[in-house]
């Protein structure tokens, strides 16, 4: 069942199309990735579907609700993790969660939420006291207070160390395991390969390829692609993780 349907989405800035005829569908319970270079239109595409930016052409539906027609109904059933999570200072984590929950008209399961992101002992901390990785995880907890159907993450692991990245991948997997559909953008191709069921590759405002990572790789190899170097069974990141361990460092 397709929970998100984007059809010929267009966004125009001046005379230039930042997003031009983007169409894709996301199945319920899928982790869907949008990858592409800077300025490809990834964030703009997400923001149109999240009802944060007017859609200049085409349409987007989530769970059968038209985004342009009912933006508030959309916001009620989605969770959004922005690129740089920021919260008001001097507010305790449990207070921030209580406020977000009250907006959606639900009661915050503060302890469970914080536990699910490994911050159960930080309920009385302020967001500014958290490390980068912790803040990312807290931001995810805040986006999930209302148990959304679709969860959007914009470059969630940018700036995190390898341990924190792996931890976040596990977290995203566990969120999907609870039945939440996940749509994320990323610059890191290993992340897309590891995490995403399917990826859309965007460039210059258009989707230029869309499939499972395996299929995309097979397709490339079929066209006769060969790496210049022989590929080892491990890379430098595997060495790093092997030496420093998987445990979180915050």
């Amino acid at each position, binding site marked *: 069942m397709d929970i998100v349907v984007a059809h010929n989405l267009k966004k125009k800035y001046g005379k230039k199309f930042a997003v031009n005829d983007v169409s894709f569908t996301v199945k319920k319970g899928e982790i869907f990735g949008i990858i592409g270079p800077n300025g490809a239109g990834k964030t703009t595409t997400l923001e149109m579907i*999240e009802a*944060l930016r007017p859609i200049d052409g085409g349409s987007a539906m989530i769970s059968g609700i038209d985004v342009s027609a009912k933006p*508030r109904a959309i916001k009620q059933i989605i969770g*959004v993790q*922005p690129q740089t999570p920021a919260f008001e*200072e*001097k*507010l305790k984590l449990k207070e921030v969660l209580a*406020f977000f929950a009250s*907006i959606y008209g639900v009661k915050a399961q503060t302890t469970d939420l914080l536990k699910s992101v490994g911050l159960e002992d930080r309920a009385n901390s302020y967001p500014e006291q958290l490390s980068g990785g912790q803040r990312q995880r807290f931001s995810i907890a805040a986006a999930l207070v209302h148990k959304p159907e679709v969860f959007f993450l914009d470059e969630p692991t940018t700036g995190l160390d390898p341990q924190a990245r792996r931890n976040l991948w596990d977290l995203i997997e566990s969120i999907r395991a609870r039945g939440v559909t996940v749509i994320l953008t990323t610059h890191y191709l290993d992340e897309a390969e590891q995490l995403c069921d399917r990826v859309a590759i965007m460039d210059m405002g258009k989707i230029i390829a869309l499939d499972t990572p395996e299929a995309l790789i097979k397709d490339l190899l079929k066209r006769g692609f060969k790496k210049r170097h022989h590929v080892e069974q491990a890379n430098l990141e595997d060495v790093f993780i092997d030496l420093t361990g998987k445990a979180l460092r915050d």
Partner: protein
Amino acid sequence: MKGLIRQLRPIITYARIDVKKLFRDKVAIFFTIVFPLIFLFVFGGLFGNDSNVSFKVALQNNSSSDIAKQVEQSVRNSALFEVDASISSKEQATEKMSQGVLDASITIPEGFGDVDSSGLPGGTLEVFFDQSNATGAQTLASVLDGVIQELNASVVPVKQPFGVSVEASSEKGLTQFDYTFSGLLGFAILSLGIFGPTSAYPRLKQRGVLRRYRTTPIKVWQYFLANVVSNSVYGLISVGAMFAAAMVFFDLNVKGNILAIIAFILLSTIVLFGIGLAVGGWAKNENQAAPLANLLAFPMMFLSGSFFPRFLMPDWLQKISDFLPLTPVIDGARLLVTEGKTLVDIAPQIGLLAVWGVIVYLIAFRVFRWE
């Protein structure tokens, strides 16, 4: 009804944690509570003792009569005069007057109070004053005139056919501090209402905090109302501290009804906060917000009577300042707090504030941006 309660819940939740936040933030505590108190102590100290005007005078008695001694004594004992004992000559007195440290020199001439050819004692007091201090001299002359009148009446009993009866309008006169206090209340509410949000919102926007709120279904009016509620609590805390300090240290005499005062302070806080909300909600960054905030706040502070009474201004300026939103706040506070008027009496002030409230919040809604 159920839907409304559901929509009000984020407002209550936010207001509650925002008030808690105040007590965790030293900078916010400073600007909300300490800063207005500093102004209170500075201005209260300046104007606190001004209620009894006194003249610094030099007094020379060249007569040895009993009557001359009586006059000397009454001048020395009068609360109106402060006699500078270090002066013994007219030259010295003139010099001190030209320096501005002495208001006048009073001389009781030789032979003052001696019985003359008419069989009655007589004499003329000589008063010198500095040319630049003519109004002070006039007051002084009329005060001394009163002393002499009494003296005359004691020597020659006469029935005065006409007289003037003078009575103060209120039992306990308004002190200068009472005036100063309402001005400072207005100042505190204005700075809290304008400088608070115009520095906070642009910062929240730049950090992306408001952008995050925008991803949720929260409505602008909910966010506004939440902030209005918490800012009103800030305002009551700030104003409450000022009242307490004024009553303890400056003998502020609160005449009005406490509930009426609280209601009026709340209205004032809400209206002036609307100005800050409009500016801070519109501005994308602090560079846009700060100049506009100053442009709006400073003229109001000076024209609406925060630091000096409006009656000192020329008529045309008073007419303009009549309509500024801070003017009814200060006037209304003075009428309620120190003159014991009721909310009905200050209906014009409340009406003007309400009109401003509608205007500033309409603007705030129109220009608000989440990022």
